[in-house]
């Protein structure tokens, strides 16, 4: 549900970078005419290579052997992040540990526990024209992930544009988080209970 809803946000003709994990699953539901960018140096990334036919020198940002589609190209990391930082990527879809009502994102480390490094995420969040967060609404222990203020080290400040979870679609604006859609199977009450951040609820979504 998260994945299909995110796919609807991606406009034909746009250049999109999908993060590792949940966002990668969006690939299957992409509309026609999306160009996928992979930060390790590829435009028009294609699906994983069929077994035994993989080119050992073409991988995606997760290290998985993939293909390149016709019209694609390869380039080095400085160019790749020039494309990203320079605003030539229309949207990035990323997972998150925490998001807050100031459009902050924390996604890259849990001090003392998990420090994989930020990889390309910090550049992507700052550079992409639109930052879409695709994540479960709550952490595995049930605690809220959409907070008044992030507690974990940030990936970037004030950059999140949209949050899509299995419960809600939330627009992140300078005025605050605006609830845009209640996902099928959820309810306003459910969302309010599982969200720490203040939500702006438009008239049409109030009971």
């Amino acid at each position, binding site marked *: 549900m998260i994945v299909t809803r995110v796919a609807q946000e991606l406009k034909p003709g746009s250049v999109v970078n999908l993060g590792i994990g949940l966002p990668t699953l969006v690939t299957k539901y992409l509309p026609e005419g999306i160009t996928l960018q*992979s*930060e*390790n*140096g*590829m435009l028009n990334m294609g699906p994983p290579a069929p077994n035994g036919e993989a*080119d*050992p*020198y*073409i*991988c995606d940002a*997760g*290290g998985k052997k993939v293909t*390149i589609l016709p019209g694609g190209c*390869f*380039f*080095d*990391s*400085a160019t*790749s*992040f*020039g494309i*990203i*930082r320079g605003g030539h990527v229309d949207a990035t879809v990323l997972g998150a540990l925490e998001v807050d009502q100031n459009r*902050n994102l924390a996604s890259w480390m849990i001090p*003392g526990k*998990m*420090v*994989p*490094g*930020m*990889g*390309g*995420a*910090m*550049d992507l969040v*700052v*550079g992409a024209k639109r930052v879409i967060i695709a994540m479960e609404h709550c952490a595995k222990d049930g605690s809220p992930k959409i907070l008044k203020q992030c507690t974990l*080290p*940030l*990936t*970037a*400040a*004030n950059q999140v544009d949209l949050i899509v979870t299995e419960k809600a679609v939330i627009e992140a604006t300078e005025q605050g988080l605006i609830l845009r859609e209640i996902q099928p199977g959820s309810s306003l009450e459910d969302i309010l209970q599982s969200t720490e951040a203040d939500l702006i609820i438009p008239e049409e979504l109030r009971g």
Partner: protein
Amino acid sequence: MPKITDAATAIKQIKNGDTVMIGGFMAVGTPENLVDTLIEQGTGDLTVICNDTGFIGIGIGKLIVDHRITELMASHIGTNPETGRQMNAGEIKVTLMPQGTLAERIRAGGYGLGGVLTPTGFGTVVEEGKKTIEIEGVPYLLELPIKADYALLHAKVGDKAGNLMYHGTMYNFNPVMAMAANTVIAEVDEILEDSFLPPDSIHTPGIVVDYLVKKAW
């Protein structure tokens, strides 16, 4: 003109304590023969600059597992759990930075720039100890150049003038590293002995390549 030689000869000039850039992203574009040779020759106490530490047993991961690296600058270490373990145990000093920043810092080193201003990392721990400069109301971090004693690269084809051509995503950090090290050693799948790469299709100009090693395993 680069010297065309074997991995052992090219690598033995690297001494304990040297600073070495190694190309590759998730081991694609990492010169495996050169890394294996570093391990064979027992070279250690290295400062390594690279995007990521590959996987256990693959790419730069081999140097980590064998404790050859005492200091590491990288953007991602998540695919090699041993790097995180050594970092948490205080066995290795790790500086993590955004991938685009790493690329620009290495490029600045090789291109004679004193630094670049990037918006990436502002408002995060990345800004610690760095100068912030505002340009037209937008804050940027001043990121400084990185250079190295050696760069170990992997390319698809090299010609006898040292010109390199990459293929696929092996491109990644190799071209910027080629410019930023005192001595550049490139492992290539193929060496053109009697011809040259087409001048419009060269990714790294031969003048910066000191040694060409044909990939042998």
